């Protein structure tokens, strides 16, 4: 317990030094939003293309989730480590000392890992939540019900994300949630209109 407490305390300290919380929050909201909208696109594409096999939807959906996760993880790791290195170099030019072995250097490295994990896991998890009804499609009999349920899950996830952002900005949670749902509805509508079949 003592070890866990110390680890959490150190994490809090690193978060204060490297301002991890704010960046991670931003990445989380942005990428979870991306994840939900992308999976809506995949679902609508499958639906309008006449795919009625939940196995195909799960397979394409999971591939998309994994690709988004890797994209987030890799992209954030590379960009964040480049930015953090630059920031540390600038600070070292001012202090005229090597900061890599100090708390600041360690906080900077921790920030890269945490932000990369958040950036990768947020779209992966959000998309997986939306896709989850298809894992239980055997219980639902009709695959169309899974599509509706998934889209419903997507709207709930979007609303939760909006409410989360509303809490961050101390605005009306419901209004903020509805704004997010608006983006989801537009994505569904445009995908439906693209149906050429």
């Amino acid at each position: 317990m003592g070890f866990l407490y110390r680890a959490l305390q150190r994490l809090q300290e690193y978060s204060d030094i490297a301002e991890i919380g704010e960046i991670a929050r931003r990445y989380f909201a942005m990428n979870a939003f991306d994840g939900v909208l992308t999976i809506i696109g995949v679902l609508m594409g499958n639906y309008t293309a006449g795919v009625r096999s939940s196995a195909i939807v799960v397979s394409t959906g999971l591939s998309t989730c994994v690709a988004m996760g890797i994209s987030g993880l890799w992209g954030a790791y590379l960009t964040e480590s480049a930015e953090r290195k630059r920031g540390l170099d600038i600070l070292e030019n001012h202090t005229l000392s090597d900061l890599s072995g100090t708390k600041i250097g360690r906080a900077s490295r921790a920030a890269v890992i945490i932000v990369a994990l958040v950036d990768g896991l947020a779209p992966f998890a959000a998309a997986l939540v939306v896709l989850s009804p298809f894992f239980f499609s055997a219980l639902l009999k009709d695959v169309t019900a899974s599509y509706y349920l998934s889209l419903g899950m997507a709207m709930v996830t979007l609303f939760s994300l909006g409410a989360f952002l509303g809490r961050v900005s101390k605005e009306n949670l419901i209004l903020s949630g509805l704004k997010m749902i608006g983006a989801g509805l537009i994505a569904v509508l445009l995908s439906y209109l693209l149906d050429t079949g």
Partner: protein
Amino acid sequence: MGKIRRLVLDVLKPHEPTIIELAGQLSDLNGVEAVNISIYEIDRRVENAKITIEGDNIHYERVQQVILENGGTVHSIDEVVAGKMIIEDAETPQDALR
């Protein structure tokens, strides 16, 4: 060797970790009884701090280690008091010329 009872250091440090954090860590050191940190110059990324430490047995190496660990560098040691008690610097005729 006599015990160091007061140290006054001129330190350049980044804004983070803050001087609240630094003062807390320095005051946790064995032999330290009180710490005073004041910022006398502030830049966009770094700040100059005057750190005054008093105690009954201050270990300079440990003090320096804490400062380095927090990204700071000791520019100069501006005052040291060692011995059985704390004394202030003696007045000399040269001081009157200042």
